[in-house]
């Protein structure tokens, strides 16, 4: 067993690390206050290839493996969560939907501008009455002549208000539902009948926007059926499996940053005449943080490795998503505790991280759904 990170990914990691420290960290407080990532930073990230890294060169991607992508998100996750929440839904969900489920013509048309960051993607599955129960979506698509007509509402769609391309999952046969009744459509900004509704006000993730998307007799040309009619649910499930690795990687990177800030603080904060790091109570918290982070990191790398080998990862992805998100919440809680009062203050990144971390247990499949996936597989396989 060889744990060496390939040389090109060490270089990639170093580049992202430098970019985070030099370009993103200095603006993260401003982004928090203004609730917006400066467009010039988004442009810079696009030029560096952040928006297309795991896709083949022929489509303008970086040809980075899942392991490389995980290492990338781990580094990016160290900074404010809004940055990885701009990139990951675009790459892991929207662009991956086109790559996994699209026809060759669709890949040729959409992947190059999406990889270049010229067109931002969003993934629209969740609805007011269909979150965890994704097969219960109500958005309908009906064929009229050479067009499909979409009607329905999508909720909490990350990047929804700024996306140029939205992958919309809609019901094409309500009797079949998950078994061939759901179809994905490539909807572009400007298609008649598509508009952005309310932009959500959230607990955290400032700088990252989620919005309601409305489809009112939205006209979609036949060639924008992603892949084939009825294949949507299968595509969504495959896409979500891969996405979970990215989420876990970001959680690991964010938690690692919190651990490092906690060590620094513990070494400098003096109480009762000595640094609080001298207290066993603090030391144990640091040790617990480090242990959980390391476990989540190894699970992330292994799941990414399995994905790169072409092995089935449904159970692994569910396990690492649930484990890493819960790890991140434990770590964030301890980081606030070690920092004490300052950890609760808006002026310091710990408070922001605490709020931003909480969503990890909810989005991209709640941890309860992950446990259902794990248990279903366990009971089927028997070990």
């Amino acid at each position, binding site marked *: 067993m060889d744990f060496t990170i390939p*040389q*090109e990914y*060490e*270089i*990639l990691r*170093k*580049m992202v690390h*430098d*970019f985070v420290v030099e370009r993103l960290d200095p603006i993260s407080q401003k982004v928090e206050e203004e609730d917006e990532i400066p467009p010039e930073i988004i442009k810079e990230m696009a*030029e*560096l*290839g*952040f928006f297309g*890294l795991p896709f083949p*060169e022929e489509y*303008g*991607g*970086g*040809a*980075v493996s899942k392991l490389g992508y995980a290492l*990338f998100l781990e580094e990016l996750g160290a900074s404010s969560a809004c940055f990885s929440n701009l990139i990951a839904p675009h790459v892991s969900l929207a662009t991956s939907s086109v790559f996994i489920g699209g026809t060759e013509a669709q890949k040729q048309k959409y992947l190059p501008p999406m990889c270049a960051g010229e067109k931002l993607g969003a993934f629209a599955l969740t609805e007011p009455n269909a979150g965890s129960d994704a097969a219960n979506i109500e958005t309908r698509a009906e064929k009229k002549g050479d067009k499909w007509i979409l009607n329905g509402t999508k909720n909490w769609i990350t990047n929804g208000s700024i996306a140029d391309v939205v992958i919309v999952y809609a019901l094409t046969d309500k009797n079949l539902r998950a078994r061939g009744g759901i179809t994905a459509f490539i909807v572009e900004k400007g298609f008649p009948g598509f508009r952005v509704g309310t932009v959500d006000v959230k607990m955290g993730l400032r700088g990252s926007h989620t919005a309601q998307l409305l489809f009112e007799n939205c006209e979609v040309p036949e060639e924008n059926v992603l892949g084939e009619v009825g294949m949507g649910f299968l595509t969504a499930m495959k896409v979500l499996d891969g996405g979970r690795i990215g989420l876990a990687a970001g959680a690991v990177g964010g938690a690692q940053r919190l651990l490092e800030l906690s060590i620094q603080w513990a070494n400098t904060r003096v109480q009762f005449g000595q640094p609080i790091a001298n207290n066993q109570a603090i030391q144990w918290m640091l040790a617990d943080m480090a242990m959980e982070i390391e476990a989540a990191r190894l699970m992330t790398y292994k799941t990414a490795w399995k994905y790169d080998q072409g092995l089935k990862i449904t159970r692994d992805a569910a396990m690492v998503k649930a484990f890493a998100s819960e790890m991140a919440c434990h770590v964030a809680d301890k980081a606030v505790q070690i920092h004490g009062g300052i950890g609760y203050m808006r002026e310091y990144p710990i408070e922001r991280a605490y709020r931003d971390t909480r969503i990890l247990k909810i989005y991209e499949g709640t941890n309860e759904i992950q446990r259902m996936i794990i248990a279903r597989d366990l009971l089927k396989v028997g070990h």
Partner: protein
Amino acid sequence: MLNIAVCVKQVPDTEARLSVAADKTRIEEQGISFILNPYDEHAVEEAIRLKEKQGGTVTVFCLGPARAEEAIRTALAMGADKAVHLADAAFGGGDEGTAAAALEKAIAGKSFDLVLAGRLAIDDASGQVGARLAEKLGWPHVTAVTRLAVEGREAVANREIDGGSQVVAVTLPAVITAQRGLNQPRYPKIPDIMKARRKEVAKVTPADLGLSGGEVGGAGAKGKVAGLAPAPGRSAGKVIAGEPADAARKVVGLLRDEAKVI
């Protein structure tokens, strides 16, 4: 068209916590990461900008162990075309003289117009290799350059001197060493990092360069590191109380009489 050679070195990460190895002559390499020497990064950037403007090639030269390939590939990812890696174990343990001699053999006679290098490597900070290499090549050199303009066969370089700057004009071929401020090195783009894997990195041995074992590395070195010690820890600071004007006067007095720095 400019054919540019860039000399780079891999050094411990500026963020790494260094300790001295058991033999007291090297730093402990276990558990630390290595980077492309920051001054060399400026040299690579300048070479690529010149190539982008005037056309030509950028070839990276690096003397260092196998792990140094990561620094080489970083330079290739930034935009250098190919590289020559003096990776043979025999090159190890040398001094500035053996490094410059080996680099000279690798670079001379290959019709390079310009050699760029960092003004020093942040690990041993001797800052000699660039100038020694120029001497061996018989080329002019300008060190610690903060601005460089190349036109035709002339290079005009601004270099930092105490309290000011000096402008030096040299005829190519020449050796230029980079100071901070020369440029802002680019981040390598992700697709370029991946493509850099396919660029040529030629591994050369002393024999390939026409050098005998006794002329390179530890065997050929005139100096040897006899000992290495960590910097002494900083002692507690002194707080000078009182009105600002009085305190400032006291600080000046202490700097002159106690610290003897002014």
